[in-house]
């Protein structure tokens, strides 16, 4: 019985839902959330996932081989790392001989270390004819191989020539003897018709369809850039498309579009649902039912940026201003297939489409078998690397030659890069293990001058270290930077509310910032003026693009714009000051957070504000997680963070990951306000968590771009704490200068010899500079996540590479570790993996260089005039990043960690499939256990930990690149200071 239309529709929507998982999960760029680029492949082991995804997306799984090889030279990978990585892969097969008495491990080690030049076809003929490949041995042979090869002849070049030629002949004959492996070229999945036509006729249907489709989808998704909105877009993309392009004028879009209006008119008259239209189009395109999935997958991936954005807006309309947009992937696909049909009909010319399609399918060429030279070429190189001479190669039997060839083929470039990458990561993990195992814990002060709670962000590592260096009496702690306050937030000057919490949470609470004194004339005058400025700005923004308005603006204001132009480009810091003084904003009005539960319905979310019980819950769980509930100082600063930069579409990617790409200041402020609330404290005391009466929390926001720290609600600070606060603020200010200086060492345009004063002005200028594509490096270089007490890391120079999470194993009554990890892991794994992929393939997974980026729809960036929406991170953000999977060290015993994994299958899966690595640090001793596939392996330190006594500057001063971990403020040096 043929399937009914309803069954078929259900099956199709399942297929669409399935292939949609491959689309990038990046949402609007102004709310940038780091996520695993290959989230759809998380169910596979990492090494397999990157290869499979690479094939699907046409992207790279690892760095290029040469980059790894360069790392051997600077000691970033040691030969021992490579050997261990190989042994881990080959296991008990490592020592089997494969070529004479050379073992598999040895053969692979040599190939991995020195590489095989890839060449085939005409490129290979050129190499053989025009270069010295057949006249000289490779220049980069290992010494023993060179010795073995030159032993045959003497050093002179005539003998070498004979030797090389003989070896080449021997390799050719070995390849001839070794039976040709069967051409393993099964007919791959059905490629898109576009690919078949491009291959056979050199006509690119995408070049016809994409410009139109991109313009249409962009107009549909636009969030306020265009003056005109797409007519009728509230009815959906499919309807709009039929309506607009069935107009006879649309046939002018190009020669191919001649048949488009009639096709669409016919479609419109059928009054189909998008899904039904999709089904009809698939039939018309000659796609067989069993091919639907692969066909739709290839189709959807051809414009994956735009497709992904359609899907994201359909799923999370709360993240954009135009919330009522009915974005649906099915409609997007239906439109695309209709366009494809029109294009195909034109390409087919007078041939009926069905006939055209089947002739295309029949003509698919298969892959050619490799030639003899192509097979001998890698053998020739491995023979040289192993120091084999012609005679030795000639002695190989057919089976031996076959085994040799198979081994070399199996160790393909992807396999080589996989092993090199494993060695590259292993080395880095080893250095952290060494450091943690050897570092003597530095106790935090028993009665700290103040405590500062930071986000776990790795950029806070340096700030905390410098704060502790300038004020040894301070204690620093850290947790996920939304401080448990998951909310929709609307600032007093914000036009729209936005979510401030990890992406996995859809907040229920709405919190508003209100002016403390809304009735005062100053406040009212100010807001009137702002409205006026806004109206004027809007008039200029839109007017400058029109006929008459533009003439007015350009002829009258135009010549004046040379002043801001010159100032902003040549003197960014002055321009900032000048603009500030031109439009004096007086003192910003005093505001408060409206935190308490109010009965009025919120504009978004389900509740306005929090009840006291909810507040107590938030405060209690954060303080318990920090392990600091019983030793609160009198002054506790809570610091959220954000980043302010100009001309940077990816600005929000530098904001707080735990706040869903928002700035965490309001969360810190809300947390402080909750923790200061006497009713909340009373409720907490009832649960046994006693916050001392003398304790006061102050919220703050730290700008990671210009390193400034702004405190909130200082007018509420109790008088008795003022001196204490002033001292703390001074320490913050000093730490800021030092940290700015440390950050600047990574910027090539900052001389390493300059001092801290210059560093502060440098980071401020960067933050306000229109011409600066690298305002900061964001999460670049992140590599570790350490969950444990600060004393285990205090005094260690971690080079801004470690996410630090406060967790006290001694105070964990059970459950704290679980809560901590479940909040932390998704955020840090997302950041680490996004950076990994954007660095490994900067133009495939990343969005390439920023320089030609063009903001579309206020939602994302395109390359240049028009392109797919580019997702991932730009090159300028990842250029200094080392792509490594995150290494997480948790301060607990292995069996405790296993108990966590038992209840957290997601984390367990990530670890087992090696998307991240973990180790346990013994809370009592320095012992460290690495979690491996078959259990925990104790770590034996390999290298001594470097130490300098004079603080961070002594270690990083004058240096640019990644630095080893070192002890910069050991117990000894701290005493020396005191």
């Amino acid at each position, binding site marked *: 019985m043929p399937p009914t239309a309803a069954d078929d529709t259900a099956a199709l929507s399942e297929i669409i839902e399935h292939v949609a998982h491959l689309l990038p999960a990046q949402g609007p760029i*102004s709310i940038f959330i780091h996520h695993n680029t290959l989230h759809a492949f998380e169910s596979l082991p990492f090494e397999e996932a990157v290869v499979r995804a690479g094939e699907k997306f046409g992207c790279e799984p690892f760095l290029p081989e040469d980059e790894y090889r360069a790392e051997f030279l600077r000691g970033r990978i040691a030969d021992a790392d490579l050997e261990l990585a190989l042994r881990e892969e080959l296991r008990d097969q490592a020592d089997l001989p494969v070529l004479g008495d050379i073992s598999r491990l040895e053969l692979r080690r040599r190939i991995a270390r020195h590489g095989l030049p890839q060449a085939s076809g005409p490129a290979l003929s050129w190499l053989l004819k025009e270069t010295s490949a057949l006249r000289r041995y490779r220049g980069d042979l290992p010494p023993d191989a060179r010795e073995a090869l030159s032993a045959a002849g003497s050093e002179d070049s005539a003998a070498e020539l004979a030797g090389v030629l003989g070896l080449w002949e021997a390799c050719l004959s070995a390849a001839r003897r070794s039976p040709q492996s069967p051409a393993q070229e099964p007919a791959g999945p059905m490629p898109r018709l576009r690919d078949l036509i491009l291959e056979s006729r050199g006509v690119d249907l995408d070049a016809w369809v994409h*410009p139109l489709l991109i313009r249409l989808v962009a107009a549909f998704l*636009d969030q*306020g*850039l*265009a003056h*005109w909105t*797409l*007519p009728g877009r509230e009815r959906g993309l499919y309807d709009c498309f039929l*309506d*607009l392009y069935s*107009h006879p*004028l*649309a046939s*002018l*879009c*190009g020669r191919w579009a001649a048949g488009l209006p009639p096709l669409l008119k016919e479609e419109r008259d059928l009054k189909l649902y998008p899904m039904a239209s999709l089904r009809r189009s698939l039939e018309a395109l000659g796609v067989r039912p069993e091919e639907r999935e692969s066909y739709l997958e290839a189709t959807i991936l051809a414009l994956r940026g735009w497709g992904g954005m359609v899907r994201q807006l359909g799923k999370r309309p709360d993240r954009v*201003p135009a919330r009522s947009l009915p974005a649906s992937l099915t409609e997007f696909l239906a439109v695309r297939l209709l366009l494809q049909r029109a294009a195909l009909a034109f390409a087919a010319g007078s041939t009926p489409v069905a006939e055209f399609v089947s002739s295309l399918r029949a003509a698919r060429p298969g892959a050619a078998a490799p030639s003899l030279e192509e097979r001998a070429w890698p053998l020739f190189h491995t023979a040289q690397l192993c120091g084999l001479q012609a005679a030795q190669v000639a002695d190989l039997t057919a089976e031996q030659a076959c085994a040799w060839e198979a081994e070399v083929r199996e160790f393909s470039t992807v396999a080589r890069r996989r092993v090199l990458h494993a060695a590259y990561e292993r080395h880095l993990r080893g250095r952290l293990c060494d450091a943690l195992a050897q570092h003597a814990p530095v106790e935090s002060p028993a009665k700290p001058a103040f405590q500062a709670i930071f986000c776990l962000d790795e950029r806070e590592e340096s700030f905390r270290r410098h704060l502790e260096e300038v004020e040894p009496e301070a204690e620093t702690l850290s947790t996920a930077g939304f401080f448990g306050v998951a909310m929709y937030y609307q600032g007093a000057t914000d*036009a*729209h509310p936005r979510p401030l919490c990890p992406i996995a949470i859809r907040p229920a609470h709405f919190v508003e910032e209100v002016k403390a004194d809304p009735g005062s004339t100053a406040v009212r005058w100010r807001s009137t003026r*702002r*409205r006026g*400025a806004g109206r004027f700005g*809007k008039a200029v*923004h839109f007017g400058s*693009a*029109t*006929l008459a308005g*533009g003439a007015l603006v*350009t002829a009258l*204001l*135009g*010549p004046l*714009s*040379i002043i801001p*132009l*010159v100032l*902003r*480009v*040549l003197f960014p810091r002055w321009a900032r000051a000048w603009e500030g003084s031109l439009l004096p904003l007086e003192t910003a009005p005093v505001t408060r957070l409206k935190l308490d539960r109010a009965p009025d319905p919120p504009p978004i979310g389900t509740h306005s504000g929090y009840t006291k019980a909810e507040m107590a819950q938030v405060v209690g769980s954060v303080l318990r997680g920090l392990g600091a509930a019983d030793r609160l100082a009198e002054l506790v600063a809570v610091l959220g963070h954000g980043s302010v930069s*100009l*001309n*940077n*579409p990816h600005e929000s990617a530098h904001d707080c990951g735990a706040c869903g790409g928002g700035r965490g200041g309001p969360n810190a402020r809300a947390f402080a306000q909750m923790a200061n609330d006497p009713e909340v404290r009373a409720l907490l005391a009832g649960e046994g968590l006693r916050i001392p009466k003398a304790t006061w929390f102050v919220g703050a926001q730290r700008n990671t771009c210009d390193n400034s720290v702004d405190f909130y609600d200082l007018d509420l600070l109790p008088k008795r704490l003022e001196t204490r606060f002033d001292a703390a603020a001074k320490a913050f200010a000093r730490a800021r200068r030092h940290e700015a200086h440390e950050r600047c060492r990574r910027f090539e*345009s900052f001389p390493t010899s300059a001092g801290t004063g210059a560093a502060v002005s440098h980071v401020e200028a960067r933050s306000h500079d*229109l*011409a*600066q*594509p690298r305002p900061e490096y964001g999460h670049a270089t992140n590599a570790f996540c350490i969950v444990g007490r600060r004393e285990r890391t205090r005094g260690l120079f971690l080079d801004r590479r470690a996410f630090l999470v406060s967790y006290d194993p001694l105070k964990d009554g059970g459950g704290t570790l679980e809560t901590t990890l479940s909040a932390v892991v998704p955020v840090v794994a997302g950041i680490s993996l996004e950076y990994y992929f954007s660095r490994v393939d900067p133009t495939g997974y990343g969005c390439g260089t*920023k*320089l*030609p*980026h*063009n*903001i*579309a729809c*206020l939602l994302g960036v395109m390359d*240049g*005039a*028009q392109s797919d929406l580019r997702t991932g991170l730009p090159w300028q953000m990842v250029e200094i990043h080392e792509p490594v999977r995150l290494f997480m060290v948790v301060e607990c015993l292995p069996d405790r960690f296993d108990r966590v994994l038992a209840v957290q299958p997601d984390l367990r899966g990530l670890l087992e499939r090696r998307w991240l690595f973990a180790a346990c640090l013994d809370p009592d001793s320095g012992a460290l256990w690495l979690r491996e596939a078959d259990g925990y392996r104790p770590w034996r330190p390999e290298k001594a930990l470097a130490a300098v006594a004079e603080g961070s500057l002594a270690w990083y001063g004058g240096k640019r690149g990644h630095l080893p971990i070192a002890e910069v403020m050991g117990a000894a040096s701290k005493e020396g200071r005191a």
Partner: protein
Amino acid sequence: MSPDEALRTAVLACFAAPALALAAVAAPSFFRRPLPEGRAGAIVQTGMLSCLAALLAAALLWDRAGGAPAVLALGGGWVTGGAFAFDLVVDGWSLGFAILSVAICGVVSAFSFRYLHQERGFHRYFILLVAFVLGLLLVSLAGSIEVLYAGWEVMGLSSALLVAFFHERPAPVESGFRVLAFYRIGDACMLAAAALLHHWSGSGSLAMLFSRSGAEAALTPGHAAAIAVLLIAAAGAKSALLPFSTWLPRAMEGPTPSSAVYYGALSIHAGCFLLLRASPLLSQSPLARGLAASAGAATAIYAALVTRAQSDVKSRLCFSSLTQVGIIFVEIALGLKVLAFLHMVGNACYRLLQFLSAPNILHDIHELENDLGGSIAQAGAPAGASARWLYLLALERGFLDGMIERCIVQPVAQAVSRLDRLDRRLCGSLPGLAREAADGD
């Protein structure tokens, strides 16, 4: 030094400074020893600053000498008959446009110096930018049509190469090629104008075109009209007037500052400047005048309509800039030279600023919305019976791409492939060539 000599030296210096900078940056790169970024940047900046200083000095000297247009003959007479001349003309217009150009390029080079930091192609970018400055100087100070043509070509080439700056992707290269193709149409018109000018007047001096009396004396009205129409076509191609406008949005492929300086500020106004200079010629020929005015007006209306449906920041900017360029053409055709010049300066500076801060649009709109207290999106859309096709027309940019494909590309491609087939058939019959032709397949 006599005032004349001083002026001459200053004008020569304004060419020498960027030329030396160009050589100093390009030569080491040519020998694959590119200068360190800092040094290359310093050389370019010094070149731009000295050029600006020389121009300002020239302006001062020229003003002190009485402010009458001065022609500097710097050479020529290489070809028998002395018809080819390297003449420069120094007057208010030429100095004004030259100073504007160099000042803007100076600011943009300072911007680019940080923006392109550590980019592959850093040197290539600055070499092209300095070449562009030289081209602009030649165009603005040209006293003979040979000089004008040389400058025109240098500008065109550097802008096409900068569009194709990211040559590892196909789209920029295609767009660069398209820009070049349209520029060539304009260049061909200018070359024809040059040939006709020489033929009819016996000299390539522009001085006679740039002054009313000169133009009337040297050319008959018919000749003047023909040359004016050709110059309008040349200017129209460079300024992306209709029907050439299709290359403009595609030119947004290069790094942001290059899009800014070429299509926001200078290259797009070079056509306006040419027409401004040749306006005495226009006043002689109502036909040319009408053509310039109608092309300008049509472009302004077209671009203003198209702008409304553009949803990416760079297309929106380039069409809003084009709107004003169209109006400037109309102003010139109406003889409002001073207004046109001011409008040109204003549009150049304003669009440059908008382009350079285009990546900041999220920030800007966010602040605007906060000030307004609500969304900035306009619910505007064309209404009424014509709404649908008007919107479609705007979204599809007037179907220019499709029409050009149909009316120009396709016929030309067909003709070329017919000629190719004919060529093969003819050559195929020749002994000895038959095999080569077959190999070439």
